[in-house]
């Protein structure tokens, strides 16, 4: 099978998956009781206004009619208008994506780096105290609730020590040069990134450790050892490269989920990213916005999956595109 044919086939599959996701989400979201009128009308809401809002947004129409209207819009490349923002969904999402990509992207970079190397190192050193230390510490952090760890870091480094800011992405009303802004952003990034890294790196440690341990028992490693290669060369040149496959799968999955943001971390640190957007849209029952975010997430996960398949073929020449494995 040629490369173009493979890509074409996968893109067809992607469209099917996204449509399925949109339809399922549409009905699931509309099944939840309450709607956006309750939110917009505020604490002093009157039933009359709630009905007006429903009429205005077409929420009084039968669910299936609403669905066909939404699909029609969707095929015209229009994700609709957010009820609460009064702006096109695409522009709302676009305004939140940079914040999320910065936070999750930087965290993911450190997670992959630290997680993989620690895990691989532990796998090499099995069985030893170092190995069990790395493995157990990563397990301890992995099992901590993000919410709790985030608040703990805030308490220690934000409230008591006052080293880092507690909330937000930047100091509001800051004046200064470009570099002041950049440093201010980095300074705000430390705690949320630390939270995400501590909680997530364990996952990579476990995978890297397991796959390195498996590789280390392979005959070619024994051969390399008996030739007299140094540990470092065996590790980088032979073991790590071969252990990359499961790690790459994991990375791709996470890259796909990246646009979804990190809900708890974003809430604790008042980070204006996608996670918080989804959370607030859910509470306000802002259907177009919710469907829009889910659609974008579905697309990015699907695209990341195609990416993985392509990367696989480069990493392991034995795997050919489009063939059954």
């Amino acid at each position: 099978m040629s490369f173009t044919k493979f890509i074409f086939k996968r893109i067809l599959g992607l469209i099917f998956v996204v449509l399925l996701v949109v339809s399922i989400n549409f009905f699931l979201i509309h099944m939840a009781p309450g709607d956006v009128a309750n939110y917009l009308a505020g604490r002093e809401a009157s039933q009359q206004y709630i009905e007006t809002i429903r009429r205005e947004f077409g929420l009084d129409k039968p669910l299936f009619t609403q669905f066909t209207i939404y699909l029609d819009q969707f095929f015209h490349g229009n994700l609709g208008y957010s009820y609460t923002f009064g702006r096109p969904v695409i522009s709302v999402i676009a305004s939140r994506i940079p914040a999320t990509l910065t936070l999750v992207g930087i965290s993911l970079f450190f997670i992959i780096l630290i997680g993989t190397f620690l895990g691989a190192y532990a796998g090499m050193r099995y069985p030893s105290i170092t190995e069990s230390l790395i493995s157990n510490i990563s397990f301890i952090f992995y099992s901590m609730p993000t919410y709790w760890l985030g608040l703990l870091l805030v308490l220690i480094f934000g409230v008591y020590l006052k080293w880092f800011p507690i909330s937000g992405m930047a100091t509001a009303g800051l004046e200064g040069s470009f570099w002041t802004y950049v440093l201010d952003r980095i300074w705000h990034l430390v705690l949320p990134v630390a939270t995400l890294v501590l909680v997530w790196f364990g996952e990579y440690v476990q995978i890297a450790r397991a796959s390195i341990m498996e590789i280390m028992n392979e005959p070619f490693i024994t051969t390399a050892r008996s030739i007299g290669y140094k540990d470092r060369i065996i590790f980088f040149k032979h073991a790590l490269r071969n252990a990359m496959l499961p790690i790459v799968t994991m990375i791709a999955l996470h890259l796909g989920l990246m646009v979804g943001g990190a809900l708890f971390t974003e809430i604790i640190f008042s980070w204006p990213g996608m996670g918080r957007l989804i959370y607030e849209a859910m509470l306000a029952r802002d259907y177009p916005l919710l469907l829009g975010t889910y659609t974008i997430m579905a697309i990015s996960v699907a695209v990341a999956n195609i990416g993985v398949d392509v990367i696989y073929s480069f990493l392991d020449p034995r795997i050919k595109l489009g063939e059954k494995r």
Partner: protein
Amino acid sequence: MRKAKLKLKVPLITLIVAIILLTSSVSTCAVSATEYPPPNTWENGRYYTPGQYGGTFRTADIEPCEQINPDWSATSSMESAQVYSRLICFDYGVMYGIGYYGDLAKSWEISPDFKVYTFHLYENATWHDGVPVTSADVKYTFETIMEKDYPANSYVLNRIESIATPDEYTVVITLKKTDTSFMGALAMAGMWMLSILPKHLYEGTDWKTNPYNLHPIGSGPFKVEEFVPGEYTVFVANDNWFRGRPYIDKLIIEQVPDPVAGLNAFKAGKYDYVDNSYVPQWAEIADLNRTEGIRVTLSGWVYDLSILLNFRRKPFDNPLVREAIAYGINRTEVRIKGFYGYYPETYWAIIPFFKQYINPNATFPDYNLTKAEELLDKAGYPIGPDGYRFHTTITNGPYPDDKVLAEMITEQLRRLKIDVTWAMYDSATWVSKRNAGDFDITCYWVNYCPDPSIFYRFFHSKGWSNYMGYYNQEVDELIEQSFVTTDEEQRQEIWNKIQEILVKDIAWIPIVNEMYFTFIREGWHGIPSELPPDGGMGRSYTWFGFARVWYAAPTPSPAPTPSPWFTEPGFIIAIVIVIAVAAVGSWVAWKRTRRT
């Protein structure tokens, strides 16, 4: 080789840390030098302590703010309060005898039959872009809301028959019929959903999508300098505000959706002020009260915390059962165990803060368990074979106060051998169930502001907040009568009568009076929820008005004896890290030597 690499790394890290620390300290000191007018000490007929100009006031808002226009959706209250003006308004003073007062309206006349209201506007009021504010803006705002049926319409504006503008600074509102409660309702709506919008920027556009919702041009005390939805809003003082420039130069409102995070940031000194939406745990209040440099203020609030019994459902259609439940509730226990003693008990049909309207003879039954049991037996609900009289459900929204209340009521009703299931929903679910009358018992808050004319909303059969389905012909008639009674004494008599019937019918059960907490960093004055002359009541222009907030460095309290340096948390953590690094390092080294 390895050593050389290490040496390079260390200075780089220290450099970065040093730069970060430097910029952080630079960002905190920025004072502008402007010419300030003399401080405003006499406003709305009251004397206030002369304030000091300058400074930045920082606070947090728990509600998401997607756009700044409260008129088409009742959101963004805190942000819009800074930017826009209303015709007339209230503030926390309403609980302390300060009634509604003018915002854009300088003065007004009310016709003897309470049908024609003539407002005279401030002639020096301008929009932030320099265009003068005129009666045409008021007329346009009101008429658009009425036409589009935005929230303020059903709240107050649907009583209006016509709006005339005889000149640029006069607005004449004629009502469909005599209504003594109009001014109160107008001021009340102004707090949330009746800001006057600029006609020259909004005319002919859809209010929902008008780009000025993101770059608002108002006529209020602050101009929006920067609005980042989901992050923060930076306001600067409007030098040309028609009531005189605000004291502070800058106001920053950040959006913090999580109460724990918001309170932590306040403790760390990031904010100068947060309100009671940031109290996740009641024990925190006592803790903050003891903290040096923080002032905790407790002021009256217009809501009670109550429970509604659904009249449409069995067994609550039975007056004996309702009475029994009223007897079965121990308010003292709710106050002490549930709310740490902060919320006063309420036994009347109106909260204690409006005592001028209370009928002292109309009181809800006090706690009496034996009486309650007798009544339930009499009503035909004896203890059944499963040990319970009947099964029911209590619901509430995700609000901390309601959660505490629901928990306490569940416990107290179980003592009456009523099997109560407790269900808490997210806001949208709870509101839609409540509005549809789909509940047995629900926690609720009845709003008593500004006077008992609000009874219409909750207890008239056509009232839009009559969720429990209460209907009493006599109450309906009396409420309608109260609107057209222009004599104050007669009106109070009618209100007294209504209260008697409501209590007799157990139309709802008020339990405690909700209070409003504010946490203020020492040195800040003119806070909206504090009493004059130092506080801002009477000139805050809505609940969230920060126009008259000012800062004066507090007189330093005697310096606390410094704790020994070795108990500093930073030092302890550093020591632990050093020991850990040393231990791991030496262990690795030892392991290496052993291998070779």
